[in-house]
């Protein structure tokens, strides 16, 4: 499947099924609307007349070049990946979201965890559940060596003893089992202090730091319990953490914002975070009930698209104070294999989430939904049927994904979003799809821009 679009002044073509990416001149770009596979070596006779605004030489030349791409398999490649999806089986569990705290010290209005408690009681995970989680991963991960565990919540720093205990336990037994634990943490930063910063920078391969950008954007929606500014508390702590980290040579962290209807000019928030000294940035659209005043709806799409265009241009033109924007990063050349791309969400299959009481759910977004409970660490139960269902939930079993040009970069979106907003894990959430495709165009354009600049 071929997708063509203009961005940053380039005529870009993505051949989805081969991952070929090309930049075309106007003549070849217009021609793509008129031809399809199978291409013949001979140019169709009526093409010059259909493209009369170009010289016949150009039309011939462009056709010949497109034909070369076609022959080498990077244009109009066929989608023959379904055969791999038919053999998709359950994977070892090697990744976990550990909800160490179902409590939070902020009251962010858009929180999907309903201000931290996931609709249940506020509680903290005892250290022994953390240790059981490690045992579970060692047992269930078969021969997988790299095991990922993300401390999440609620606010995970509220369960600091459990975080430390869990890490310590894993480190004490990982070698004897041939495992390598990769810890990450997602925090709002309120409770960060020197000791925690030091521990996090030593033990965690990635940290996600939640901040919404400018002071007014952050404080409008990330509410503290005492009514004071969250921004003022958090920013210096994040700066300290990031400085410590980068001095040690670790570049993996994200300062992550959620944008809502209140700040559709989120480029300003991204740039503000850069001004604060952060270089790894992210801003993600809030996904929430349309009835919320800050919800993003279909009507906001044109505004958001133009904002993404703006951000994309800013990034392309910057020569200093550059930064990475999470959603505009693609690795064209060394990205994951096609098999991996058939199933972008590992939920319930190689990934699970565990709540403070040891209940196991397919992922952090399913936590608290009884119907999706997979088992419990205390009694050793683990539902294999739910696992099989998710193993078979991939591009070719989801509605519309096989015919979507973005499929090998989106990989079918978020199962939880689909379930919560469309009622079915296999029915992609339309608004998320639209945003995904737009971001991907920007990402591809930036990759093209960089490749062309490097080649000069």
């Amino acid at each position, binding site marked *: 499947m071929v997708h063509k679009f203009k961005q940053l002044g380039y005529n870009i073509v993505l*051949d989805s*099924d*081969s*991952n070929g990416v*090309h930049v*075309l*001149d106007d003549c*070849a770009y217009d021609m793509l609307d008129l031809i399809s596979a199978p291409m013949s070596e001979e140019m169709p006779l009526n093409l010059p007349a259909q493209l009369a605004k170009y010289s016949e030489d150009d039309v011939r*030349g462009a056709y010949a070049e*497109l034909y070369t791409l076609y022959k080498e398999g*990077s244009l109009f*490649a066929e989608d023959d*990946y379904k055969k*791999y999806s038919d053999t998709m089986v359950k994977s070892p569990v*090697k*990744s976990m*979201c550990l909800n160490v705290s179902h409590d939070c010290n902020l009251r962010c209005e858009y929180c*999907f965890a309903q201000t931290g408690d996931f609709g249940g009681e506020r509680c903290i995970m005892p250290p022994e559940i953390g240790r059981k989680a490690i045992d579970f991963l060692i047992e269930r991960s078969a021969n*997988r060596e790299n095991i*990922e565990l*993300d401390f999440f919540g609620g606010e995970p720093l509220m369960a600091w003893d459990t975080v430390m205990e869990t890490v310590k336990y894993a480190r004490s037994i990982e070698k004897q089992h041939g495992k390598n634990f990769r810890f*990450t943490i*997602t925090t709002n930063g309120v409770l960060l202090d020197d000791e925690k910063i030091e521990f996090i920078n030593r033990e965690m391969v*990635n940290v*996600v730091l939640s901040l919404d950008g400018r002071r007014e954007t952050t404080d409008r929606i990330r509410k503290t319990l005492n009514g004071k500014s969250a921004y003022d508390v958090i920013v210096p702590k994040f700066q300290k953490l990031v400085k410590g980290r980068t001095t040690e040579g670790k570049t993996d962290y994200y300062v992550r914002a959620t944008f809502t209807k209140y700040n559709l000019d989120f480029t300003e928030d991204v740039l503000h975070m850069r001004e604060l000294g952060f270089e790894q940035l*992210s801003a*993600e*659209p809030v996904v929430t009930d349309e009835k919320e005043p800050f919800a993003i709806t279909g009507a906001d799409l044109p505004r958001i698209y133009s904002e993404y265009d703006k951000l994309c241009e800013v990034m392309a033109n910057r020569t200093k104070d550059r930064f990475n924007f*999470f959603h505009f*990063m*693609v*690795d*064209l*050349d*060394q*990205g*994951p*294999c*096609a*098999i*991996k791309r058939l199933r*972008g*969400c590992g939920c319930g299959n190689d990934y699970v989430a565990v709540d403070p009481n040891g209940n196991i759910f397919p*992922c*952090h*977004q399913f936590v608290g939904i009884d119907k999706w409970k997979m088992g419990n660490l205390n009694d050793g139960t683990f539902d294999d049927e739910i696992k099989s269902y998710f193993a078979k939930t991939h591009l070719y079993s989801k509605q519309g994904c096989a015919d979507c040009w973005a499929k*090998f970069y*989106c*990989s*079918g*979106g*978020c199962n*939880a*979003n689909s379930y919560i907003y469309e009622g079915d894990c296999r029915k992609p959430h339309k608004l*998320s799809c639209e945003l995904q495709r737009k971001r*991907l165009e920007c990402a591809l354009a930036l*990759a*093209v821009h960089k*490749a*062309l600049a490097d080649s000069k």
Partner: protein
Amino acid sequence: MKHVVTVNKANLKASAEKGGCGKCTSSCQSACKTSCTVANQKCESVK
């Protein structure tokens, strides 16, 4: 070539043939976990 500049060659089919080793990070496509979407990942077996 005069009309076309190829920025990325076809590499997806070949990746399918030798792929699926499972060494790479688990991924999540949702907005609430920034660390691991597919487009951001690298293959961990071709180092």
